[in-house]
């Protein structure tokens, strides 16, 4: 999954766009090692030491990974679980709406 997200973030770096993660690695050090090795540039909430069973993912009922919400600039949920080109198209559409 990372290469796609990475290129999306790179392509839209000058646009009003942010990729925000909810990271569910229980070991922060492991996360930071991997994030560095994989050139992860986006910010993530940390879901705590319980990993996938931490508070944010539990409250949001997340059972499959990754789970994705695309949110417009007004804070409205517009797409769920779009991947790859679908994710790109969703984000482009929402950016277009802002013009």
């Amino acid at each position, binding site marked *: 999954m990372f290469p796609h997200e990475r290129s999306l973030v790179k392509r839209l770096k000058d646009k*009003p766009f*942010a*990729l925000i993660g909810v990271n569910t690695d229980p070991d922060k050090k492991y996360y930071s090692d991997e994030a560095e090795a994989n050139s992860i540039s986006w910010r993530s909430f940390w879901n705590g030491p319980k990993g996938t*069973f931490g508070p944010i993912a539990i409250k949001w009922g997340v059972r499959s*990974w990754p789970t994705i*919400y695309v949110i417009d*600039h007004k804070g409205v*949920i*517009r797409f769920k679980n779009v991947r790859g080109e679908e994710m790109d198209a969703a984000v482009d559409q929402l950016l277009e709406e802002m013009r």
Partner: protein
Amino acid sequence: MLEYARLPGCSQPVYTPEIMRISLPCALALLFPTLLPAQDVGQRPAASAVAEDLTAELHKQKRESQVARATVRESEAYREARKDDDREKMNALLADAPPPDLLALGNKALEEAAKYQGDDRALLLVWAAVRTRDDGIVTRVIDEVLEHHLDSIAVIPLLENGLNLSRQLGPDKGKVFLSKFAYESKNDYVRAWAMYKIAERMGRGPNASEEEKAKRGEMMALVEELAAGTELGERINAPRFVEERLQIGMDVPEIVGEDTDGIAFKLSDYRGKVVVLDFWGFW
């Protein structure tokens, strides 16, 4: 009361006018603190700090093991074995990259637990069982917590993993394990967790009877009541939260938390931007 009064052997405050009341070991301890066994001098670290250290060590061993496995997988010998589909050789090569020594860490946790009482002790016992899943350790810990720590909030990780542990304990002990917490604990949150785990496996599947389904519903309702406003409450409520708050067209709920560097932020900080919110992990 003065700090000194905490020294072992001093049951009374030390700094009293009747200086003669100080017992001999107490006076010696005051004069020569180094005479005492090391572990009794000063304050022991909090049990939670000991558990955190153990977790950090476990994580470190896991990371090292992962790196070592990756190195083996990239080696020429491994690649060749893989090309030949030689499973035995592949496994033999991977044996050079051992997994974390769970048993040693678990035994260390038990050893530390023995230095504590009450909730602190339970916390470390539970760490040993949940993190190692070793049959011997699990059995020993469950026996001890059932006997002494039924009301301790520290047993909750044990209950969270309750179904797996029940299976591991076998039919007899497994059944007793959850139901004892569910019906005999004086702590409502502990009861709620145990009942939740019992209810979770009831009335499921195509063969579930109406009676079982009804009992499950009844139990879940009780759990919801006991766990209102807690993390367990949120877990039970999650399907409703998805239904009522996370549908397309709805305002996204706020998330307040910390990033992976420990810096506080919230989702609404990004209002005005298009946001992809991505639940993920390297694991």
